[in-house]
């Protein structure tokens, strides 16, 4: 209904490979960007700081993990550890007086380096074995962080994020933190949107589909798997740093434990492997659904004056959350991105049923 394709044509192959050849998609992106930039003016601080901001940061993180899982087809159960390395790395770096921008890059590189070491070890194995190897990384990093006071910040195991400046502007209020997170998110998103269009992205896809088939078309599977680990870890580190600086403002080991790794994996799977928009949707569902459901059930219980104990009331959202995730995956095993694609297709072929090609 909304999609108008007439008049969309290309006079070069470069144009043919445009990200959004469909005008409606372009408008949608513009509108979303405008909304994102205008959000601080439009949203109460509550929603900005405790919904939108963490959503953006987690979407960034999910994109990084999705690069590895969705694009390159490798599982990673220790992604929170990667983020932790970035978070701690960046905080220590800024405390040492390194500018935030460099610290951000540095934290990414640190995560990438450590991630790569594990990648090396892990990539001799595949599938479930890889899952276990990455799990080991999670445990190891967790252990090191909580047992080395120099990293974790002493017996209280909390490290404050120091004050910092971004591109010369002091980042102090909710707004400025939000914009930093948005900027990183937009950058990472553009990177991932374009990955599929580069030879790197195509090599990853080949490796994902069948690594030995990739080898016979000249794609060095091992190298690209490592590259995927490297890139993904870099993005994980950066998003971990942003999470620490812009959202938590203080890091503790619990913020990056195994649960969080599982959540990140859930974001990717529920969102849709190899999908940019899926990473956003997955992050939204996994991160925000418990909160929204909690408030919803609470409000409902209050309104209906349900004679339920708080303990029971607290568990209902969890049950609903579980049902929601299982429901979505049953309804569409390819994730929310596919749900979105289905809706888009529904309107793309409107008022017909089938695509005619």
């Amino acid at each position, binding site marked *: 209904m909304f999609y108008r394709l007439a008049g969309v044509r290309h006079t*070069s*192959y470069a144009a043919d490979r445009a990200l959004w050849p469909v005008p409606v998609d372009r408008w949608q992106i513009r509108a979303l960007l405008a909304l994102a930039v205008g959000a601080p003016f439009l949203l109460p601080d509550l929603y900005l700081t405790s919904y939108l901001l963490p959503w953006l940061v987690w979407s960034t993180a999910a994109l990084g993990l999705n690069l590895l899982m969705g694009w390159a087809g490798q599982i990673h159960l220790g992604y929170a550890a990667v983020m932790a390395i970035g978070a701690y790395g960046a905080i220590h770096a800024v405390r040492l007086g390194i500018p935030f921008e460099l610290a951000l890059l540095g934290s990414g590189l640190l995560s990438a380096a450590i991630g790569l070491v594990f990648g090396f070890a892990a990539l001799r194995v595949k599938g479930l074995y890889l899952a276990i190897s990455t799990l080991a990384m999670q445990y190891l990093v967790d252990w090191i962080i909580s047992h080395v006071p120099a990293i974790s910040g002493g017996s209280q195991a909390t490290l404050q994020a120091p004050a910092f400046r971004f591109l010369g502007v002091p980042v102090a209020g909710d707004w400025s933190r939000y914009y930093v997170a948005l900027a990183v998110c937009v950058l990472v998103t553009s990177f991932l949107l374009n990955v599929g269009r580069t030879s790197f992205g195509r090599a990853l896809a080949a490796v994902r589909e069948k690594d030995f088939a990739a080898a016979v078309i000249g794609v060095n599977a091992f190298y690209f798997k490592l590259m995927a680990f490297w890139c993904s870890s870099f993005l994980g580190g950066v998003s971990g740093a942003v999470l620490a600086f812009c959202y938590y403002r203080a890091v503790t080991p619990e913020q990056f434990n195994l649960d969080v790794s599982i959540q990140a994996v859930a974001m990717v799977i529920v969102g849709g492997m190899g999908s940019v928009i899926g990473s956003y949707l997955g992050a939204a569902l996994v991160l925000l659904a418990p909160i929204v459901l909690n408030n919803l059930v609470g409000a409902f219980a209050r309104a209906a004056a349900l004679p339920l104990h708080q303990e029971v009331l607290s568990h209902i959202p969890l049950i609903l959350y579980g049902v929601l995730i299982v429901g979505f995956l049953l309804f569409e095993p390819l994730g929310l991105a596919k749900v979105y694609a289905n809706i888009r297709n529904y309107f793309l072929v409107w008022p017909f*049923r089938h695509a005619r090609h």
Partner: protein
Amino acid sequence: MLLDTPVARPTRAIVEPPPAPSSADDTLLSLLARNAATHARRVALRERDLGIWHEYTWRDYLDQVVALAAGLEALGFEPAEPMLVIGDNRARLYFAMLAAAALRGVPAPIYPEVPPEELAHFARERARFAIAEDQEQVDKLLELRARTGAPEYIIYDDPRGLAGYAASGLIDYETVVARGRARLKADPGLAADLIARAGPDDGAVLLHSSGTTGRPKGVLLKHRRVLAAIRNAAAADYFREGEEYVAYLPMAWIGDFVFSVGAAIALRFVVSIPEGQETVLRDLREIAPTLYFASARSWDNLLTRLQVGIDESTPLKRGLVAFFMRLAIDIERRRLAGERPRPWWNVLRGLGELVVYGPIKDHLGLGRAHRCYTAGEAIGEDTFLFFRALGLNLKQFYGQTENCALTAAQDDARVRLHTVGRALPGVEIRIDENGEVLIRAESVFDGYVDDPDATARTLVDGWLRTGDAGYLEPDGELVILGRVGEVVHTSAGERFIPNYIENRIKFSQYVRDVAVLGAGRPFLAAIVCIDMEAVGHWAQVRGVAYTSYADLSQKPEVYALVQGVLRHVNGVLPPPLRLRRFVNLHKAFDPDDGEVTRTRKLRRNVIEKRYAQIIDAIYAGASEIEFEARITYETGESGVLRRRLTIMDVGA
């Protein structure tokens, strides 16, 4: 930077004072040169190749034409010489037409599907030069040369498969252009000379009238004629400057020449050429033309496709489409009946535009089509109303090759189903005592090539005898009834025009083609070719299993369906002219079999001869017939198929 994806944006019609399209001294070449001078960098032609639209500006256009002309001249091309142009629409074929015209020669486009032996009819002018699209056409021309000795030079566009050919005179387009460029470089005055050489009274194109009965006749149209026709049409606001147009109609058809070359140059259209015939519909959507022209037949097919598609759709979408289309058709019907627009029409139409009309038009690629035309034969009421209801300003016009296709046209204020509009400015229309439509205009041609008898019969006292029967309504609107020569009598002496009845039958989406029989016979009968898509879908919905076209056509359910269609038509016919019997043919009529012309007009003599067995059986009262069908394949081979066909009474 992310957002600013470099996708071609719609070329906007530039608002400028409407230019005088041309003057009496102009030629297509002088106008082309004018465009290249005033709008050098504006896109003139777009050609889709391997998925990408390659663009030619007006300067490129002129540059190609001039270089090719210079090259052709170097090969020995002489004034007044015909040049065969054979193939699907391609930019270089258009360039070649203009290059030939620049050398005061006559480009003669030919339908690309013409089989080799038929080619000889078209090529009796013994052209020494030909340009061919691809290997297939080159092979045909070589075969023609083996038979007749001409053409001497065959220039080809697409070199695929031609590398190993050793035939003399077979030249790559590029080579000719390169030779031309070398000449142009050596002689700085040559370009201007080539542009100025042709005069208004030189031939612009040599076309062949469709010829439902005999051989096609050569129609030579001069620059003066073509440009006059376009001036007339532009004066009636029929074309505007800078339209987006898709050149997909056969180049050998007058419609294509007038739109894609004549009007395109005179009024600076952007002409887009689809990748191939298979991709026309998709390419059309990529272009989204502002001016669209299709035969009544195509509009019918389009409607059938849409209806099948909507039928297959989900209930919600189907329901919405049904609701809004019914509404729009109702509004359109009232509007055509002269009712004053009501405010709520606009509200509902606005909503419908968003939900139904807009998306459908978008799918068709007609979202921006401000001018939609049909001509050639009567359009069905359902089809006409449907597309007008969608919001397409679909209008009919009337014309013939001999008058550069532009004789009469409907204007916005007087759109009616049964008329073809009023005479264009500069065109006089008269109905003679026999009811034949006569035309006088500057755009009328000067005579058939090498056929003084036919010319004498057609051009009488400065009037063109069209051969169409019709009348003028009091307000000057022209109504066409059929071909004068097509009025026939049953053995009982009942007078009828088969074409008129056929058109009524073809208004049904289930009927693709039909031949009405009855001349010299006791009653009327019909040979029906079903529409595979519409009937196939109809069968599918009803659970009627079928495999092929032949199988489907002989299903009793399908017979019943066709019977219903014929009974409906019988309802509006006087009793003696009602159809009594019919047969569903196992195949569709095909130009390759000679049953219809390339423009899909019935060739009755061929049908009567080929299906004599069936026709005899119909009139002998048989209820089925074992029929041996001869089929000609495009390779020229032929085969025989044995078929058992049912013959059925239409009944009441």
